[in-house]
């Protein structure tokens, strides 16, 4: 009933970024407790890139996990990393691992609950039909009105998603190709330029993921003068030998 109306939040079987990460760990027969999470950054970005369409509401959290993985990895492999940076990468990794452990337990609990449902061993309560023949009395019309209000509120929230028009659809892969083509024409472009005038959150995030992906594949170089400055995206190899 309600479920048939609700929008699909699952993308190709993934329930979210933690689900995807956990799946990667399980795929590679690694243990959540011991795996080096940064090592999974490449695999994670590859899978995100492969997702045809990221769900609008979830995309920010996919991005968050992706960028944290990249950060953990970057900090741990950069030769100039300071002790502080390494400690910070460790703390990040520990926090993310803790979240994965909690989520793993939740998944197992959900599976255990599913097993109970599948067994069909539910209970039923008695709705009424009281064997004592007493005419009802003492109904509270205020409680009736409150019940009605609640029912309507529920009916309304349950239908709201239908009113939301599905946003534009960009895949990370399409956006990456676009950016790559753009960089054939001009050797560098700023992140803000790529975001256009008034980006939707979704567009901004897909663009950012595409850039991460291009960087990972060695297609582009990234430059940022200072924290929070605009990012400059350059075709790899451009810079020293500018045309």
């Amino acid at each position, binding site marked *: *009933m309600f479920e048939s109306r609700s929008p699909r939040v699952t993308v190709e079987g993934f329930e979210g970024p933690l689900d995807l990460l956990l799946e990667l760990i399980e795929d590679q027969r690694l243990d959540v407790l011991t795996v080096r999470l940064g090592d999974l950054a490449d695999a994670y970005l590859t899978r995100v890139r492969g997702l045809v369409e990221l769900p609008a509401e979830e995309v920010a959290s996919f991005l968050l996990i992706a960028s944290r993985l990249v950060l953990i990895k970057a900090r741990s492999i950069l030769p100039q990393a300071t002790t502080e940076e390494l400690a910070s990468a460790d703390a990040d990794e520990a926090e993310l691992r803790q979240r994965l452990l909690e989520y793993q337990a939740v998944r197992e609990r959900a599976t255990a609950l599913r097993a109970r449902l599948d067994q069909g061993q539910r209970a*039923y309560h008695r709705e*009424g*039909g009281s*064997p004592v023949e007493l005419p009802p009395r003492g109904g509270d019309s205020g409680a009736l009105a409150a019940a009605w209000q609640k*029912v*309507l509120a529920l009916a309304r929230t349950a239908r709201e998603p239908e009113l939301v028009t599905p946003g534009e659809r960009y895949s990370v892969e399409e956006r990456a190709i676009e950016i790559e083509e753009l960089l054939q024409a001009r050797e560098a472009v700023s992140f803000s330029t790529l975001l256009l005038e008034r980006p939707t959150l979704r567009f901004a995030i897909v663009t950012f993921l595409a850039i991460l992906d291009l960087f990972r594949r060695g297609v582009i170089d990234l430059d940022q003068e200072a924290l929070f400055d605009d990012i400059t995206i350059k075709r790899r190899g451009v810079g020293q030998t500018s045309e």
Partner: protein
Amino acid sequence: MNELRSAIEAVLFVAEKPVTVGELVRATGARPREVEQALAALEELRGSSGLRLQRDGDAWRLVTSPESARAVTAYLGADRLRISHAALETLSVIAYRQPATRADVESIRGVNCDQTVETLMARRLIEEVGRAERPGRPILYGTTWEFLECFGLSSIDELPRVLTPEGERLDESAPREFAEPIE
């Protein structure tokens, strides 16, 4: 207690009306003879508990034991409308939108309402008032005079008004397909 006896007891427990041996046969998959034996055993077993098996022709039901009548009456007491939250919600849909079909209730509440409709019928808080003019000609339900009496209303017009958070009248904003809005 054996499995068949338990199953029969459970079915009698949830049933809103007396259950025939035929219905018990269909529900349990046992043979009529086995069902009858189990009923007899259950009747004996139940003799010393708070519940009794009552036979009405071919049909059976569970009722409270006479010895427990005092506690039951004390519990039900003056405030006799012991009604579940689910039943109250179903009643509110029917009261505010009447006449309404089961499908109307389900489309608003989002869950199956057969049980609660039966309860409300058994309590005579709602009744059949006709058939909707559409495929399947589903039953239309409305509230009864017992409903008015129970809630201390002199007419349906006295139902409390309900406001949405936005302040608009809900009974106006919720379109009704088959009946007039309650003014």
